């Protein structure tokens, strides 16, 4: 029910956006994420973008994961 997948915003028209994931396109509502811009990734849930994926945070998390993994190797 709370499933949401990250999809890329291809174009925006009013409160709708054309989104894409793995070659599949879907017209989503951006009524809940008016700040979204073309090229952003959004979390798509039941036809609505419920949040914009934060790319900088995504990179930070990957960095953190690498750091934790490297500490684990030392021990």
């Amino acid at each position: 029910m709370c499933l949401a997948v990250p999809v890329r915003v291809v174009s925006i028209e009013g409160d709708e956006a054309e989104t894409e994931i793995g070659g599949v396109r879907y017209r989503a509502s951006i009524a809940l994420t008016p700040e979204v811009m073309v090229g952003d990734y959004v979390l798509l849930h039941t036809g609505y973008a419920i949040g914009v994926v934060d790319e900088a945070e995504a990179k930070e998390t990957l960095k953190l994961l690498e750091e934790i993994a490297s500490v684990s190797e030392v021990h």
Partner: protein
Amino acid sequence: MKFIDEYQNSELAGKLAHRIANCSTKPIRLMEFCGGHTHAIMRYGIRQLVPKTVGMRSGPGCPVCVTAIADLDKAIAMAHLPGVIITTFGDIVRVPGSYSSLQQAKAEGADMRIVYSTIDAVEIARVNPKKSVIFVGIGFETTAPTIAASIIKARREGIENFYVLSLLKLTPPIMKALLDLGEVRLDGIIGPGHVSAIIGSHPYEFIPRDYNIGCVISGFEPLDILLCLNKLVEQIEGGKPKVEIAYPRGVKPQGNKKALELMNAVFETNSANWRGIGIVPQSGLRINKKYQHFDANRAFEVSLESAREHKGCRCGDILRGVATPLGCKLFGKVCTPEDPVGPCMVSSEGACAAYYQYGASYE
């Protein structure tokens, strides 16, 4: 796929699990609130990956599962009303009510349609102006703003034959109710990622403050979950419980302001009936006075026979974390995904469905 594949790296996962094993010295029990997490944990074999000291229990975070049988009976009764098209998300249609199911109602002639989005339900109302289109609104805070947006859209576009039977439920109040029940000792909570994308992390602050356990919000890929487990284990070992976000690409501390604004514009809190738990004050959402025209509860009256639970089904205990599916005598024998007795076996987020699908041999 971006933001998915990089969080599924098995080599990193192995190292993270190793780190958790190094850090964990005492047996603990964590609850994954969200049914999506239950399935991800099983699907990626995370229970086998982490040390035996880290125990996990499924919680009530499956909206289909926690829908009270009496509420489901009401939806089924509404489906039988003349001139009604009933619309809903897929999972709930196969859940047995006291006497029938939405699927059975359709077989008996009711016009029941599965939709992917509330947008589709509003569209059905638009093209069927002589019919009353009722959307059975199940879900948590993740889904509530989307239903609010559909009601606002229906009003704006003058679609007056669209109604919502709101069975929406709220996460923090049920967490509090479970912790107050105290039936299961918990050392930490794996917080729901997409509920939190809407409400943020602040509403969970009562958990470390009042119950002295941590709550770490997690994403749904294996590395997200392992990062969350690592943080929880570190908190527990260090004796410093707190609320943390292990899914910052999807969750901000303040949540999604626009979504909260729409949700608050259409709904108000009320008590809700949870399967296996009962009535919990302020744990549900009903349509407020301003939008009452769209409230199916107000627009339609149905007479109901008293609700009847299915004998032997332990969904209620499983939703409270008191039992696992293996503790249910019906599991895998009388109750299977093909012929489910309770909702936990029907829903794609149900704990029984996860145990059945991914195997139960690890316990």
